[in-house]
Protein backbone atom coordinates (compact mmCIF):
# COMPACT_ATOMS: atom_id res chain seq x y z
CA UNK A 1 0.00 0.00 0.00
CA UNK A 2 2.83 2.39 0.88
CA UNK A 3 4.50 1.83 -2.52
CA UNK A 4 1.22 2.41 -4.42
CA UNK A 5 0.74 5.67 -2.53
CA UNK A 6 4.33 6.72 -3.33
CA UNK A 7 3.85 6.05 -7.06
CA UNK A 8 0.51 7.90 -7.04
CA UNK A 9 1.98 10.94 -5.28
CA UNK A 10 5.03 11.10 -7.56
CA UNK A 11 3.04 10.87 -10.84
CA UNK A 12 1.22 14.22 -10.53
CA UNK A 13 2.78 17.36 -9.09
CA UNK A 14 0.38 20.28 -8.69
CA UNK A 15 1.61 23.84 -9.23
CA UNK A 16 -0.33 26.85 -7.92
CA UNK A 17 -0.08 30.45 -9.07
CA UNK A 18 1.84 32.93 -6.95
CA UNK A 19 1.47 35.80 -9.41
CA UNK A 20 -1.03 35.84 -12.26
CA UNK A 21 -2.71 38.38 -14.54
CA UNK A 22 -5.45 38.25 -17.10
CA UNK A 23 -6.03 41.05 -19.54
CA UNK A 24 -8.84 41.28 -22.00
CA UNK A 25 -8.90 43.52 -25.03
CA UNK A 26 -11.88 44.73 -27.04
CA UNK A 27 -11.09 46.34 -30.37
CA UNK A 28 -13.47 47.81 -32.91
CA UNK A 29 -12.89 50.30 -35.74
CA UNK A 30 -14.01 53.06 -33.35
CA UNK A 31 -12.67 52.14 -29.95
CA UNK A 32 -10.15 49.94 -28.19
CA UNK A 33 -10.12 49.29 -24.46
CA UNK A 34 -8.81 46.74 -22.04
CA UNK A 35 -9.17 45.64 -18.45
CA UNK A 36 -6.72 43.82 -16.19
CA UNK A 37 -7.32 41.27 -13.46
CA UNK A 38 -4.53 40.52 -10.99
CA UNK A 39 -6.52 37.97 -8.99
CA UNK A 40 -6.94 34.82 -11.07
CA UNK A 41 -6.00 31.61 -9.28
CA UNK A 42 -4.41 28.99 -11.49
CA UNK A 43 -3.49 25.37 -10.86
CA UNK A 44 -1.52 23.16 -13.19
CA UNK A 45 -0.12 19.65 -13.02
CA UNK A 46 3.03 18.25 -14.56
CA UNK A 47 0.78 16.02 -16.69
CA UNK A 48 -0.90 19.06 -18.23
CA UNK A 49 -4.19 19.51 -16.35
CA UNK A 50 -5.09 23.21 -15.99
CA UNK A 51 -7.66 25.05 -13.97
CA UNK A 52 -8.33 28.81 -13.72
CA UNK A 53 -10.70 30.65 -11.45
CA UNK A 54 -11.20 34.38 -11.99
CA UNK A 55 -13.28 36.73 -9.81
CA UNK A 56 -15.09 38.84 -12.40
CA UNK A 57 -15.26 41.94 -10.23
CA UNK A 58 -11.48 42.02 -10.00
CA UNK A 59 -11.24 43.23 -13.60
CA UNK A 60 -10.22 46.87 -13.35
CA UNK A 61 -11.10 49.43 -16.01
CA UNK A 62 -9.74 52.95 -16.28
CA UNK A 63 -13.20 54.47 -16.59
CA UNK A 64 -15.73 54.05 -13.77
CA UNK A 65 -18.72 53.95 -16.12
CA UNK A 66 -17.23 51.08 -18.11
CA UNK A 67 -16.48 49.23 -14.86
CA UNK A 68 -20.08 49.61 -13.73
CA UNK A 69 -21.56 48.54 -17.08
CA UNK A 70 -19.22 45.56 -17.30
CA UNK A 71 -20.11 44.29 -13.83
CA UNK A 72 -23.80 45.09 -13.67
CA UNK A 73 -25.06 44.87 -17.26
CA UNK A 74 -22.74 42.57 -19.19
CA UNK A 75 -21.28 40.07 -16.74
CA UNK A 76 -24.02 40.39 -14.04
CA UNK A 77 -21.27 39.69 -11.54
CA UNK A 78 -23.57 39.61 -8.52
CA UNK A 79 -25.22 36.50 -10.10
CA UNK A 80 -22.05 35.04 -11.66
CA UNK A 81 -19.11 36.32 -9.63
CA UNK A 82 -16.52 33.92 -11.08
CA UNK A 83 -15.35 32.72 -14.45
CA UNK A 84 -13.78 29.25 -14.52
CA UNK A 85 -11.78 27.13 -16.89
CA UNK A 86 -10.96 23.42 -16.57
CA UNK A 87 -8.97 21.66 -19.22
CA UNK A 88 -5.75 20.03 -20.21
CA UNK A 89 -2.86 20.25 -22.65
CA UNK A 90 -3.82 18.52 -25.93
CA UNK A 91 -0.71 19.42 -27.92
CA UNK A 92 1.82 17.98 -27.58
CA UNK A 93 0.09 14.68 -26.93
CA UNK A 94 1.00 12.89 -23.68
CA UNK A 95 2.35 16.18 -22.30
CA UNK A 96 4.91 15.97 -19.55
CA UNK A 97 6.37 19.07 -17.93
CA UNK A 98 10.15 19.41 -18.40
CA UNK A 99 12.86 22.05 -18.00
CA UNK A 100 12.84 24.74 -20.69
CA UNK A 101 10.11 26.19 -22.88
CA UNK A 102 7.30 24.14 -24.39
CA UNK A 103 4.72 25.44 -26.86
CA UNK A 104 1.31 24.07 -26.00
CA UNK A 105 -2.33 24.01 -26.95
CA UNK A 106 -4.84 23.68 -24.15
CA UNK A 107 -8.48 22.72 -24.50
CA UNK A 108 -11.30 22.60 -21.98
CA UNK A 109 -14.54 24.05 -20.70
CA UNK A 110 -14.88 27.72 -19.86
CA UNK A 111 -17.80 28.68 -17.64
CA UNK A 112 -18.74 32.34 -17.67
CA UNK A 113 -22.01 34.23 -17.15
CA UNK A 114 -23.72 30.91 -16.37
CA UNK A 115 -22.76 29.34 -19.73
CA UNK A 116 -20.28 26.52 -20.35
CA UNK A 117 -18.44 26.29 -23.64
CA UNK A 118 -15.45 24.40 -24.96
CA UNK A 119 -12.48 26.64 -25.85
CA UNK A 120 -8.85 26.25 -26.93
CA UNK A 121 -5.86 28.41 -26.10
CA UNK A 122 -2.28 28.46 -27.33
CA UNK A 123 0.69 29.50 -25.31
CA UNK A 124 3.97 28.52 -23.74
CA UNK A 125 4.93 26.79 -20.54
CA UNK A 126 8.42 27.36 -19.19
CA UNK A 127 9.92 25.40 -16.33
CA UNK A 128 12.99 26.64 -14.53
CA UNK A 129 13.87 24.46 -11.53
CA UNK A 130 10.82 24.78 -9.23
CA UNK A 131 9.14 27.68 -11.00
CA UNK A 132 6.71 27.39 -13.90
CA UNK A 133 5.75 30.37 -16.06
CA UNK A 134 2.82 30.06 -18.41
CA UNK A 135 1.44 32.57 -20.87
CA UNK A 136 -0.96 32.53 -23.77
CA UNK A 137 -4.08 33.93 -25.32
CA UNK A 138 -7.42 33.01 -26.80
CA UNK A 139 -10.53 34.66 -28.18
CA UNK A 140 -14.04 34.46 -26.81
CA UNK A 141 -17.28 35.54 -28.43
CA UNK A 142 -19.47 37.40 -25.95
CA UNK A 143 -22.57 36.11 -27.72
CA UNK A 144 -21.50 32.52 -26.91
CA UNK A 145 -21.91 33.37 -23.24
CA UNK A 146 -25.24 35.20 -23.65
CA UNK A 147 -23.55 38.57 -23.06
CA UNK A 148 -25.56 41.00 -25.15
CA UNK A 149 -24.01 44.21 -26.46
CA UNK A 150 -26.64 46.96 -26.62
CA UNK A 151 -27.22 48.42 -30.11
CA UNK A 152 -25.91 51.80 -28.87
CA UNK A 153 -22.54 50.25 -28.07
CA UNK A 154 -22.04 48.00 -31.12
CA UNK A 155 -19.34 50.36 -32.43
CA UNK A 156 -17.55 50.60 -29.08
CA UNK A 157 -17.52 46.98 -27.89
CA UNK A 158 -16.39 44.04 -29.98
CA UNK A 159 -18.22 40.71 -29.81
CA UNK A 160 -14.76 39.09 -30.08
CA UNK A 161 -12.66 39.65 -26.99
CA UNK A 162 -8.99 38.63 -26.87
CA UNK A 163 -7.85 37.28 -23.53
CA UNK A 164 -4.16 37.26 -22.55
CA UNK A 165 -2.94 35.46 -19.49
CA UNK A 166 0.37 35.16 -17.71
CA UNK A 167 1.19 33.35 -14.50
CA UNK A 168 4.06 32.22 -12.31
CA UNK A 169 3.42 29.00 -10.44
CA UNK A 170 5.20 27.06 -7.73
CA UNK A 171 4.74 23.53 -6.42
CA UNK A 172 1.69 23.33 -4.14
CA UNK A 173 2.69 23.28 -0.50
CA UNK A 174 1.45 20.44 1.71
CA UNK A 175 -1.43 21.35 4.04
CA UNK A 176 -0.36 22.51 7.51
CA UNK A 177 -1.41 20.06 10.22
Amino acid at each position, binding site marked *: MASIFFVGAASSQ*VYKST*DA*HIRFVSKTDFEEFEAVN*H*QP*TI*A*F*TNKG*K*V*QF*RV*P*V*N*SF*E*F*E*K*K*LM*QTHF*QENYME*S*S*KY*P*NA*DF*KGSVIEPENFNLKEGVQKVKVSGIMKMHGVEKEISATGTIQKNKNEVVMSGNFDVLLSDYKIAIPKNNINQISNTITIHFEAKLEPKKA*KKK
Partner: protein
Amino acid sequence: MKKVGLIVLILVAIAGITGLFFWFQPTAKIADGNADFTLSIEDLVNEGIETNDSLFNSKYVDKVIQFSGDVSSIKIDDSQSEIKLDVNTDETVIVRAAFDPSQNNDLQNIKERDSVTCQCKFNGISLPDDPDDLLSEIIVSFSRCSIKK
Protein backbone atom coordinates in the same frame (compact mmCIF):
# COMPACT_ATOMS: atom_id res chain seq x y z
CA MET B 1 -36.80 83.25 -29.71
CA LYS B 2 -33.10 84.01 -29.50
CA LYS B 3 -33.26 83.80 -25.71
CA VAL B 4 -34.95 80.37 -25.88
CA GLY B 5 -32.30 79.19 -28.33
CA LEU B 6 -29.55 80.40 -26.02
CA ILE B 7 -31.11 78.67 -23.01
CA VAL B 8 -31.45 75.41 -24.97
CA LEU B 9 -27.82 75.69 -26.07
CA ILE B 10 -26.66 76.26 -22.50
CA LEU B 11 -28.72 73.27 -21.27
CA VAL B 12 -27.29 71.06 -24.03
CA ALA B 13 -23.77 72.21 -23.15
CA ILE B 14 -24.35 71.46 -19.45
CA ALA B 15 -25.75 68.02 -20.32
CA GLY B 16 -22.79 67.37 -22.61
CA ILE B 17 -20.24 68.43 -20.01
CA THR B 18 -21.98 66.34 -17.34
CA GLY B 19 -22.00 63.36 -19.70
CA LEU B 20 -18.31 63.77 -20.46
CA PHE B 21 -17.58 64.10 -16.75
CA PHE B 22 -19.27 60.78 -16.03
CA TRP B 23 -17.75 59.09 -19.10
CA PHE B 24 -14.20 60.06 -18.19
CA GLN B 25 -14.55 59.66 -14.42
CA PRO B 26 -11.81 57.24 -13.40
CA THR B 27 -12.48 54.06 -11.46
CA ALA B 28 -11.95 54.49 -7.72
CA LYS B 29 -8.66 53.10 -6.45
CA ILE B 30 -9.93 52.36 -2.94
CA ALA B 31 -13.30 51.45 -1.43
CA ASP B 32 -13.60 54.46 0.83
CA GLY B 33 -16.54 55.89 2.76
CA ASN B 34 -18.51 53.87 5.28
CA ALA B 35 -18.39 50.11 5.09
CA ASP B 36 -21.62 48.36 4.11
CA PHE B 37 -20.69 45.48 6.43
CA THR B 38 -18.23 44.93 9.26
CA LEU B 39 -17.74 41.28 10.05
CA SER B 40 -15.10 38.66 10.58
CA ILE B 41 -13.71 36.75 7.65
CA GLU B 42 -14.76 33.50 9.32
CA ASP B 43 -18.38 34.69 9.48
CA LEU B 44 -18.30 35.77 5.84
CA VAL B 45 -16.82 32.45 4.71
CA ASN B 46 -19.24 30.38 6.80
CA GLU B 47 -22.17 32.35 5.45
CA GLY B 48 -20.83 31.87 1.91
CA ILE B 49 -20.65 28.11 2.41
CA GLU B 50 -24.04 27.76 4.06
CA THR B 51 -26.16 30.25 2.08
CA ASN B 52 -27.67 29.86 -1.34
CA ASP B 53 -25.25 31.32 -3.93
CA SER B 54 -27.49 34.00 -5.40
CA LEU B 55 -28.65 35.28 -1.99
CA PHE B 56 -25.10 35.52 -0.69
CA ASN B 57 -23.79 37.12 -3.87
CA SER B 58 -26.53 39.73 -4.11
CA LYS B 59 -25.99 40.62 -0.44
CA TYR B 60 -22.21 40.98 -0.47
CA VAL B 61 -20.64 41.10 -3.96
CA ASP B 62 -19.48 44.60 -4.89
CA LYS B 63 -20.19 45.89 -1.36
CA VAL B 64 -17.63 47.51 0.93
CA ILE B 65 -16.62 45.22 3.80
CA GLN B 66 -14.41 45.95 6.77
CA PHE B 67 -12.73 42.91 8.31
CA SER B 68 -9.72 41.95 10.42
CA GLY B 69 -7.30 39.09 10.17
CA ASP B 70 -3.72 37.90 10.54
CA VAL B 71 -1.38 38.36 7.61
CA SER B 72 -0.09 35.10 6.12
CA SER B 73 1.81 36.75 3.26
CA ILE B 74 2.32 40.18 1.73
CA LYS B 75 3.43 41.22 -1.74
CA ILE B 76 4.17 44.86 -2.56
CA ASP B 77 4.25 45.67 -6.25
CA ASP B 78 4.04 48.64 -8.62
CA SER B 79 1.04 47.17 -10.47
CA GLN B 80 -0.96 45.72 -7.59
CA SER B 81 -0.04 44.74 -4.04
CA GLU B 82 -1.68 41.93 -2.13
CA ILE B 83 -2.10 40.67 1.39
CA LYS B 84 -3.22 37.10 2.05
CA LEU B 85 -4.84 36.41 5.39
CA ASP B 86 -5.21 33.37 7.62
CA VAL B 87 -8.70 32.14 8.28
CA ASN B 88 -9.66 29.96 11.22
CA THR B 89 -12.15 27.50 9.70
CA ASP B 90 -12.30 23.78 9.03
CA GLU B 91 -11.99 24.35 5.31
CA THR B 92 -8.86 25.50 3.50
CA VAL B 93 -9.51 29.16 2.73
CA ILE B 94 -7.38 31.69 0.90
CA VAL B 95 -8.29 35.35 1.49
CA ARG B 96 -6.77 37.69 -1.08
CA ALA B 97 -6.91 41.42 -0.47
CA ALA B 98 -5.63 43.51 -3.39
CA PHE B 99 -4.30 47.04 -2.95
CA ASP B 100 -3.70 49.78 -5.52
CA PRO B 101 -0.02 50.91 -5.57
CA SER B 102 -1.18 54.24 -4.02
CA GLN B 103 -1.55 52.25 -0.77
CA ASN B 104 2.03 50.87 -0.80
CA ASN B 105 3.26 53.32 1.85
CA ASP B 106 0.74 51.92 4.34
CA LEU B 107 1.78 48.36 3.46
CA GLN B 108 5.52 48.88 3.92
CA ASN B 109 5.40 48.33 7.69
CA ILE B 110 3.18 45.27 7.61
CA LYS B 111 4.77 41.88 8.20
CA GLU B 112 3.60 38.27 8.26
CA ARG B 113 1.58 37.42 11.40
CA ASP B 114 0.59 41.08 11.98
CA SER B 115 -3.09 41.70 12.70
CA VAL B 116 -4.63 44.11 10.22
CA THR B 117 -8.01 45.68 9.63
CA CYS B 118 -8.84 46.22 5.98
CA GLN B 119 -11.68 47.91 4.16
CA CYS B 120 -12.22 46.54 0.67
CA LYS B 121 -14.67 45.90 -2.12
CA PHE B 122 -15.78 42.27 -1.96
CA ASN B 123 -15.45 40.47 -5.30
CA GLY B 124 -16.83 37.11 -4.37
CA ILE B 125 -16.14 33.75 -2.84
CA SER B 126 -15.32 30.76 -4.96
CA LEU B 127 -16.18 27.30 -3.68
CA PRO B 128 -14.75 24.20 -5.35
CA ASP B 129 -17.34 22.47 -7.56
CA ASP B 130 -15.81 19.07 -7.16
CA PRO B 131 -13.67 17.55 -4.38
CA ASP B 132 -11.22 16.44 -7.10
CA ASP B 133 -10.75 20.00 -8.38
CA LEU B 134 -7.13 21.13 -8.64
CA LEU B 135 -8.36 24.32 -7.00
CA SER B 136 -9.64 22.67 -3.86
CA GLU B 137 -9.51 25.76 -1.65
CA ILE B 138 -12.19 28.28 -0.94
CA ILE B 139 -10.95 31.58 -2.39
CA VAL B 140 -12.24 34.90 -1.05
CA SER B 141 -11.32 37.92 -3.19
CA PHE B 142 -11.24 41.59 -2.26
CA SER B 143 -9.90 44.59 -4.15
CA ARG B 144 -9.59 48.36 -3.75
CA CYS B 145 -8.42 47.69 -0.22
CA SER B 146 -7.04 50.15 2.31
CA ILE B 147 -5.61 49.57 5.76
CA LYS B 148 -7.74 50.90 8.61
CA LYS B 149 -5.70 52.17 11.54
